[in-house]
């Protein structure tokens, strides 16, 4: 059993009173070999909601940087990162989870992609975002579930 898995088991035990919200805190997620093997929340990811989180400018806003043909009726898709078409053929779920949780641990500290479930952020964070992750644990799992549906023809 790897460390991350043991930790999340412990956490799930801690949160056992409220199973629907059992989640691993951002600081407790272990990225091993560019992968996060265990889901960060107990509830299974919902790909349909993940698609919404992906496009929502106030949540994932993934289209700011990525083209995604699955959302081609969304205008203005960014080119800062690679197109995510067929991304599930290139990465496994555990790797996609690591990329969403903290891309800097996967691509290196210089990547432009923010850590969506990390508190390792820039200075002077505005009051309303202090000590908060960009996405909730549930949103992360939903986005990961959605990404795993992005397969080539």
């Amino acid at each position, binding site marked *: 059993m790897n460390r991350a898995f043991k930790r999340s088991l412990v956490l799930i035990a801690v949160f056992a009173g409220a199973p629907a919200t059992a989640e691993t805190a951002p600081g407790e997620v272990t990225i091993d070999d560019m992968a996060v093997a265990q889901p960060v929340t107990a509830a299974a990811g919902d790909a349909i909601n993940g698609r919404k989180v992906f496009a929502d400018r106030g949540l994932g806003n993934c289209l*700011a940087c990525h083209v995604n043909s699955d959302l081609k009726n969304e205008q203005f898709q960014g080119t800062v990162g*690679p197109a995510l078409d067929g991304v599930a053929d290139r990465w496994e779920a555990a790797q996609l989870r690591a990329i969403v949780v903290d891309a800097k641990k996967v691509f290196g500290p210089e990547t432009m992609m923010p850590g969506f479930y990390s508190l390792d*952020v820039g200075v*002077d964070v505005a009051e309303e*975002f202090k000590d908060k992750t960009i996405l909730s644990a549930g949103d992360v799992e939903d986005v990961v579930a959605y990404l795993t549906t992005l397969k080539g023809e």
Partner: protein
Amino acid sequence: MNKRTLAALVLLGASPLFTAARAEPVTETLEIDGEAMITEAPAPKDPPGHPFDVVKSGWLYREPDTRAMEADSFENPGMLNVEHGEEVWNTVEGEAGKSCASCHGDAAETMKGVGASYPKWNAKAGKPFDIELQINACRTAQMKAEPYKFDARDQVDLTAYIKHQSLGIPVKIDLSAGDMMSWWQTGKDRYYLRTGQLNFACASCHEKNSGNYLRADHLSQGNSNGFPTYRLKQSNLVSLHNRFRGCVRDTRAEPPKAFSDELMALEVYVAWRGEGLSIETPAVRQ
């Protein structure tokens, strides 16, 4: 993908997977009312270490309609602000009973080239001044009038009027004066400082990704030669420190105050990055 190829890809960084399609800025030339502007210039060599070979005006990254609007001063909505700035220039205010014109006469002569040399070391204040701070210094010391509050309409329009007298003149600031180099260095550190929940530095957008699209925005090098700029989104003339604050806020950080030491240092450094580009005030941006 197995882990080994994965690691190799990350190491190489140059794999096609990781190269985004860039939309190059246009290579057109800008003439404003028939006068040629320098929109591309070799990067300044002193101090060494400029990240680009060629510095480019934000004009080159905008849509054709926006570019056309700037090229014709009758179409440029910012020219109304410049005209209002001229009225302010000639208006007597304060206990000394003077206008700017009382001392400085015809701005077309006395202010020609001045805007292109700012920010400039001010020995008395012991820090760099931009045009806005110089205006406030003249208002308080020379006119015995109240200083403008940040982004007061008269402040922005008068600044645009003064900068407009340098239209076409390339930006060149004096880094040898006073303590300018230490302000330049502080500004540079700020430029590469990651801020906010989104964890971006100025360089994340304007250096590593200039030429890319961030949603609908074609990212430029973030040069200051067009300020104050007329922003179509805001239907108004926008000051440089307002733009700085907006860019920092977009990283989900609390921005420094206008004219704070942090933003003055940043202004020095950003002006240097764009040296050689013509003043385009009032530039038109989206």
